């Protein structure tokens, strides 16, 4: 099992929904991987904050803001050849500030690694 840290930083004043938003209509932060040399074995998301906003004064929202890290876990198959390799993924997120929300976006994420036997 190997782990890769994915550091993220949001513009001040903005937040994204956590991976488990507090409302069924909200779009979660989600990191997914394309098929590659490693086998994805889950993503560890940080503990979300429960924050109230002016558009949600009564119901706290489960969000991430500021700088935070995701930890992506992979299994290395025994058949994986030694040498340089890469994993490509997509980070899906939807950000808001106090008065507006940006449309959902998908960002490319890439990890470079060396497999040593």
């Amino acid at each position: 099992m190997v782990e890769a840290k994915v550091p993220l930083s949001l513009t001040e004043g903005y937040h994204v929904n956590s991976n488990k938003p507090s409302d069924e209509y909200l779009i979660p932060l989600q990191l997914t991987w394309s098929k590659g040399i490693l086998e994805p074995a889950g993503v560890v998301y940080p503990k979300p904050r429960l924050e109230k906003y002016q558009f949600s004064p009564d119901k706290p929202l489960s969000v991430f803001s500021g700088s935070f890290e995701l930890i992506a876990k992979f299994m290395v198959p025994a058949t994986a050849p030694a040498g340089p390799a890469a994993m490509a993924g997509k980070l899906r997120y939807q950000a808001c500030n106090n008065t507006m929300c940006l449309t959902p976006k998908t960002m490319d994420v890439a990890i470079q690694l060396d497999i040593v036997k």
Partner: protein
Amino acid sequence: MKRFFNKRALQILAIAGIAAYLASCSFYEAEWPAVKEEKDRKKAPEFALKDASGETAKLSDYRGKVVLLNFWATWCGPCEIEIPWFIEFQRQYKDRDFAVLGVSLDEDGWKSVLPFVAREKVNYRVMVTNEQVDQMYGGVDSLPTTFIIDREGRVASSHVGLASKNTYRQEILTLLGSPKHESPPISFNRPPGDLRADLFRPSR
């Protein structure tokens, strides 16, 4: 002296209270009505989209009416604040040549939109964008984005992000040709802080 002190202390407390009250003014009061001069208004792009009942809604069908065109989505918290206001405006002003049109940017379309509009009891026409429409309106990327369109089909004002209920109301009334300071009905069904939006009015 003690009496003077108490009076003075009360004055200071009162001033501090007012200052704190004003400092707590939210974005709701930050924006005042801004209807453009007629000469500065540009034609609102024409569109045709299917509504929830499958009928085609064209903007040109509303020529002669004042239209509040709201781009929104089910995942947009600030949009959810505004929708009850628009329901109220539709109910209040529909007989005065006014209509609200909602265009959703939800990627999964009616799957999310239909249950949402049913839950919120939306009483105005709602459509789902075909992407071209939001591009025609400047590439809508932030929600809510709202355009208020005059009777001649021209954009009289636009708002990106949450505006105040009072701002919308005053702009609608201005375009409908009503007195600017028509009293809104008392409503208790509103988020905290918004009450002030109706208490403070532009003095022009």
